[in-house]
C-alpha cells in the first residue's frame, strides 16, 4: 500500500479547518492565523492534486490510487479511487477552493474564521464526492455538501438569505432522499454498494427504470435541469461571492459527474430509454433560461440563469453517448467551472465596492476601472463561447456529438448560441460601457493586486484550454472510450435479448 494520496487530498482541507477551529488568541491574531492556514492548506492541496494528475496513468481505463478501509463490517467500505473523468473534477475543485478563500479575505467582513472553516469543510466534501467508489460514501459526501453551503448562504448571505437557504435545502434534499432509497434498494438487489463491482454487475432491466429516476431526481435538481432550476437564481443572489463561486463552479458539476458515473454506468438501459426526456428538458432549459436571462435586471440572477443554459448543454452532451458529446460535456463542465466562477467574482468585485447587484446601478465602469473592463470582457466572451476560449471547445464538441444522435436537438440547442451572445453582451454594455451613471461610481477603485492574480489565473486557463484543450482530452480519452464501449455492449445485449 502506497501513500494514501486520495485520502490526503480529501482530508487536508478538513485538517486545515480543524486547525482554524482550534486557533486561540486575540480577534486579530485569530483572523490572521486562520487566513494563513486556510490559504496554505488549500494551495498545498492544489499542488498535491497536480502531483496526483502527474502520476496518473491516462492510458488505462481502470480506477487508480484505490484505497479501501473497512468501515461497517461487510456492509460499507470506505473506498476511494479515480479515473480520467474524476481526476479533472478534483483538479477543478482544488483550483477553485483557494480562489474562494482569497475572495473571502477580500470581501467577508465578519466571522471570517467560521467562513474559512465552512469553505474548507466544503472542499473536503466535494473532493470526497469525486473520489468515492462506494455509493453510501458517495451519498454522504454528496449530501454533506448541503450543510456548509446552507450555512454559507444563511450566515454570510444577503437580506433574503433565509428564504433562499431553505429553498436550496428543500429542493436538493427532496431529490436526494429518493437517491438514498435507490441506493438502499441497490444494496438489496445486488448485495453491494461498491461502485467497481456494480459497474460490472448488470442490474436487471425492470429495476433500472425506477432506480434511474431516483438518481435522476437528485441530479436534476442539483444540476439544475428545467423545471427544477428555480432555487439556483435565488441561492446565487443571496449567497456571498465565494458561495456563488463554489455553487456554480463545483456543486453543479457534481450532478453532471453523477450522471456520467452512475446513471450511464449503472443503468445503461434506462439511460437509453430516458434519453428523449433528458434531451427535451435540456433543450427547454437552453432556450427558456436564455430568454429569461435576457430580461434579468440582477447581474447574479442573469449569470445564474445562464448557468442553467450552459448545464443544459452538458446534459445533452452526456446523453448523446458519443465520444465528442461526452468529452465535450466534461470540457464544458471544467470550462464553465472557470468561467462562471470568474463571472461571479466579477459581480463580487463591483458588489464589494458599490453594494448593488442591479444592472441599472452601474454604467460606464470602463471609465474608472479599465482593468476590470478587460477582465469582464474576457469572461463574457468565454461565456458566449467565442472560439479560442474553453467555452467554445466544450460547446462545439457537445453539438458535434449530439448532431450525430439527433439533428433537431443539436439545431435547437445551437439557437442558444445566438441568445447567449445577446444577453451577455447586453449585460456587458449596460454595466461597463456608456457614460458614468452616478457620482459614487466615479470613486470606484480598479482591481487590486489579489483580484488581478485571481482573474489572471482564471483567464489564462480559460484561453489556454481554448487553444490547447489536449491535456484535458488526453486525460479523459481512455475512460470515456471504456464507458461508451461498456454502455454499447449493454444496450446491444439487451436488444438481442428482447429480440429473442
Amino acid at each position, binding site marked *: 500500500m502506497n501513500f494514501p494520496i486520495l485520502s490526503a487530498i480529501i482530508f487536508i482541507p478538513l485538517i486545515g479547518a480543524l486547525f482554524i477551529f482550534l486557533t486561540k488568541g486575540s480577534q486579530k491574531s485569530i483572523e490572521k492565523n486562520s487566513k494563513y492556514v486556510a490559504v496554505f492548506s488549500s494551495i498545498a492541496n492544489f499542488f498535491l492534486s497536480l502531483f496526483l494528475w502527474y502520476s496518473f496513468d491516462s492510458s488505462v481505463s481502470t480506477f487508480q490510487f484505490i484505497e479501501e478501509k473497512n468501515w461497517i463490517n461487510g456492509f460499507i467500505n470506505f473506498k476511494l479511487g479515480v479515473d480520467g473523468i474524476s481526476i479533472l473534477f478534483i483538479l477543478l475543485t482544488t483550483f477553485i477552493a483557494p480562489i474562494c478563500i482569497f475572495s473571502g479575505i477580500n470581501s467577508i467582513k465578519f466571522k471570517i474564521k467560521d467562513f474559512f472553516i465552512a469553505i474548507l469543510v466544503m472542499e473536503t466534501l466535494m473532493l470526497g464526492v469525486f473520489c468515492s467508489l462506494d455509493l453510501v460514501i458517495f451519498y454522504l459526501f454528496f449530501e454533506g455538501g448541503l450543510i456548509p453551503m446552507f450555512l454559507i448562504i444563511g450566515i454570510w448571505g444577503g437580506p433574503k438569505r433565509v428564504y433562499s437557504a431553505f429553498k436550496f435545502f*428543500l429542493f436538493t434534499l427532496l431529490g436526494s432522499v429518493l437517491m438514498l432509497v435507490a441506493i438502499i434498494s441497490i444494496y438489496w438487489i445486488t448485495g453491494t454498494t461498491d461502485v467497481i463491482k456494480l459497474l460490472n454487475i448488470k442490474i436487471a432491466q425492470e429495476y433500472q427504470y425506477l432506480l434511474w429516476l431516483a438518481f435522476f431526481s437528485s441530479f436534476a435538481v442539483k444540476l439544475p435541469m428545467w423545471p427544477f432550476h428555480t432555487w439556483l437564481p435565488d441561492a446565487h443572489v443571496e449567497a456571498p461571492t465565494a458561495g456563488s463561486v463554489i455553487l456554480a463552479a463545483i456543486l453543479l458539476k457534481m450532478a453532471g459527474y453523477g450522471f456520467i458515473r452512475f446513471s450511464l454506468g449503472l443503468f445503461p438501459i434506462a439511460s437509453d430509454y430516458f434519453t428523449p426526456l433528458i434531451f427535451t428538458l435540456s433543450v427547454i432549459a437552453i432556450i427558456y433560461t436564455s430568454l*429569461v436571462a*435576457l430580461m434579468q435586471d440582477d447581474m447574479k440572477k442573469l449569470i445564474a440563469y445562464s448557468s442553467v443554459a450552459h448545464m443544459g448543454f452538458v446534459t445533452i452532451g452526456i446523453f448523446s453517448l458519443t465520444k465528442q458529446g461526452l468529452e465535450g460535456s466534461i470540457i464544458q463542465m471544467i470550462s464553465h467551472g472557470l468561467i462562471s466562477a470568474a463571472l461571479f467574482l466579477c459581480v463580487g468585485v463591483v458588489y464589494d465596492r458599490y453594494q448593488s447587484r442591479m444592472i441599472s446601478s452601474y454604467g460606464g465602469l470602463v471609465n474608472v476601472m479599465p482593468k476590470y473592463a478587460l477582465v469582464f470582457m474576457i469572461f463574457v466572451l468565454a461565456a458566449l463561447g467565442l472560439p479560442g476560449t474553453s467555452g467554445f471547445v466544450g460547446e462545439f464538441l457537445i453539438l458535434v456529438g449530439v448532431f450525430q444522435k439527433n439533428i433537431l436537438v443539436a439545431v435547437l440547442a445551437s439557437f442558444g448560441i445566438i441568445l447567449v451572445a445577446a444577453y451577455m453582451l447586453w449585460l456587458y454594455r449596460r454595466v461597463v460601457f456608456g457614460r458614468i451613471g452616478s457620482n459614487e461610481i466615479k470613486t470606484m477603485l480598479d482591481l487590486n493586486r489579489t483580484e488581478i492574480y485571481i482573474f489572471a489565473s482564471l483567464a489564462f486557463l480559460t484561453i489556454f484550454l481554448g487553444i490547447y484543450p489536449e491535456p484535458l*482530452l488526453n486525460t479523459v480519452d481512455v475512460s470515456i472510450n471504456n464507458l461508451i464501449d461498456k454502455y454499447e455492449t449493454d444496450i446491444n445485449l439487451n436488444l438481442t435479448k428482447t429480440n429473442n
Partner: protein
Amino acid sequence: MEYAIVFLPLVGSLISGFFGKRIGDKYTQILASTLVAVAAILSISIFYKVLSHDYSSNKLIFNWISSGNFVVNWSVKIDSLTSVMLVVVTLISSIIHFYSIGYMNNDPHKPRFMAYLSLFTFAMLTLVTADNFLQLFFGWEGVGLCSYLLIGFWYKKMSANSAAIKAFIVNRVGDFGFAIGIFLIFFYYGTVNYSEVFQKTPELIMQTVNFMGAEFNLINLVCILLFIGSMGKSAQILLHTWLPDAMEGPTPVSALIHAATMVTAGVFLVVRCSPIFEYSQLALNIVAIVGMATAFFAATVALVQNDIKKIIAYSTCSQLGYMFFAAGIGAYHVAIFHLFTHAFFKALLFLGAGCVIHSFREEQDINLMGGVWKKIPYTYALMIIGTLALTGFPFLSGFYSKDAIIEFAYLKGSAVGYCAVFVGIFTAFLTAIYSWRLIFKTFHGKFNNKKNNLSTIHDSALIMLIPSAILAFGAIISGVVFKKLFIGNETNFWEGSILFLEPIKYLHPPQWIIFMTPFIVTATIPAAYYLFAKDNKILKNLVLKNKFFYNFLLNKWYFDELYNFIFVEPTKKIGLFFWQRGDVNTIDKYGPDGISRIVKILSNKVVNFQSGYLYHYAFVMLVGLSILLTYLILY
C-alpha cells in the same frame, strides 16, 4: 515566413494592448504599424513565390482538438487563393495602420485602437490560412469580435454600443447556420479538413439527410448552410442590417474591416469551398440570386442616404453582392478579382471620406458640406479616383473586374446568367448615380456648413494622405496589371485552389455588352453633375411626387423596423413571460412555495389538536381505539 505573417500582427496587438501605456502612444503606433507592414512585405514575397514557382504549403502548428475521429489542427495553409488574400489583408491593413496614426491623433486611447486593429489582422489571417473549417470558424468569429470591439470603440456613445452588439448578434445568426454546416460536414464526411472534405464530395453527391421527416440533398444543404454564414459576415440582404450601423466605428475601421477585408470573408468562404459548391447547382443559384438582390437593394438605398459613410457602406454591400453573383454563376476567380480591386478602391473611398470628415470636424451629413473642392484638393482628387474606380470608369480597376463579372454572366448562358447581366448593368448605373451624388454634394455646389468656417477647412495631414495615395495608386493599376493573371485566358494561377467542373468558356460576348457599362457610367457623370450640383429643383420635385417611395428608400426598405417588430420585441416579451409566468408564477408557486404553504396550512390544522384539554385527548384516543378495534374485528 508563413508563421511570421500570421503572428507578427498578434505580437503587435499584445504589445500595444498590454504595454501600450508604458511604451507611449507614438512608439506603440509605430511598432504595431511596422509589424503589420513587415507581414505585408512577407505576404507579397509569398505571393510572388506562388506566382513564379507554384508554391503551396500546409504547415501544422499544433494539434487543437482531438476527440475520437474529430481531429483538428492549427495550421497555416498557403495556396494561390490564400496568397491573394494574404496580400489584400496585410497590405490594406498596414496602410490603414499608418493612416490611423493621423486619424486617431486626438483620441486618448491610441494603444487600445492599435491593439484591436492588429488583433483583427491576426484573426483575419488565421481565417484565410486555415486548412480546416474549425480554424476558419475561429478566425471568422475572431474578426467578428474585433469588429464588435472596434464599432463600439467610442464606448461613451450609446449608438456605437448598440451598433456593436447588433453586428455581433446578426453575425451570430449567420454563424448559427455556419456551425450547423460544420456539424453536418463532420457527420457525413467524418472530418472537417478541407482537403479530405473536397476529395470526398464527389462520392457523396447522392447522399440525403433526413431532417424532421423531410429528405434533403447533403451537398445542397451543406452549401446553403455555409452560405448562410457568408450572408451574415458579408452583409447580404436579410442579414445586412448591421453593416450600415457599423459605421459608428472610427473611419479607418470602416475602411479595413467593413469594406476591404472582413466583409469579404463570406466571398472567400464560397470560393474556398468551390469544390463543394460546384456540385450543387441549387446552392449556386441561391448564391447568385441573393447576390443580385443585395447588389440591387443596397444600390437603391444608397441613392438617398445623407450620411457620407452610410452611402459608402451600402455601396460596399452592393459590391459584395456583385462578388456573390459572380461566384454563383461559377466565375469564382472573377469574384476574387473583384474582391481584390474592390479592396483598394473601397478602402480608398473610406479613407477619403475620413479625410473629409476630419476636414469638416466630425461632420458626416453630405447636405451640410459642399463647395470645398478647391480647399481640399488632395482629398478631392483621392475621392475622384476612388469613385471612378468604383463606378467602373474605363481603365481603372473596377472597370476590369466589374465588366468581367457581367461578361462571364452573359457567357454562362443560363437564365440566372442573363438575369445577372441585367442586374449587373442596371446596378452599375445606380452605382454611378449615388457615387457622383456623393462627390457633387460633398465637394461642389454651395458651402452649407454652419459649424465651420470655409476658410478653416483644409486638407488632412500627410500621414493620412500618403497611405490614401498608395491605395489610389492601387485603385488605378490593380485592374490592368492583374487582369491577365487573375482572369486571363491562359491563366492557371488558380489550379489547386479553385475547382471549375466545366471549363470556363473564353468566347467573347457581343460588343454591345462590353461597351454598354462603360458608356452608361461615363454618361452618368454630366447628368449627375447637372442634377446634384447645378439644378436641384428637378430632384426636389421628384422627391415630392414620390414621397412614399423616397421614404421607403430613406428608411432602408424598413428592414430594421420589421426585424424589431418580428424578432427583438417578441423575444423580450417571451423572456419576460417565461420569467414571470413560468418561473415565478408556476414553478415556484406550485413547487417549493406551494409545498411550504401546504405544510404551513396543515401544521396550523394539526396544531389545533394540541388544545391542552384533557377531554380532547381522551376523545381522540377513544376514536383511535374504536377504529383499531373495528379493523381487527373485521379483518
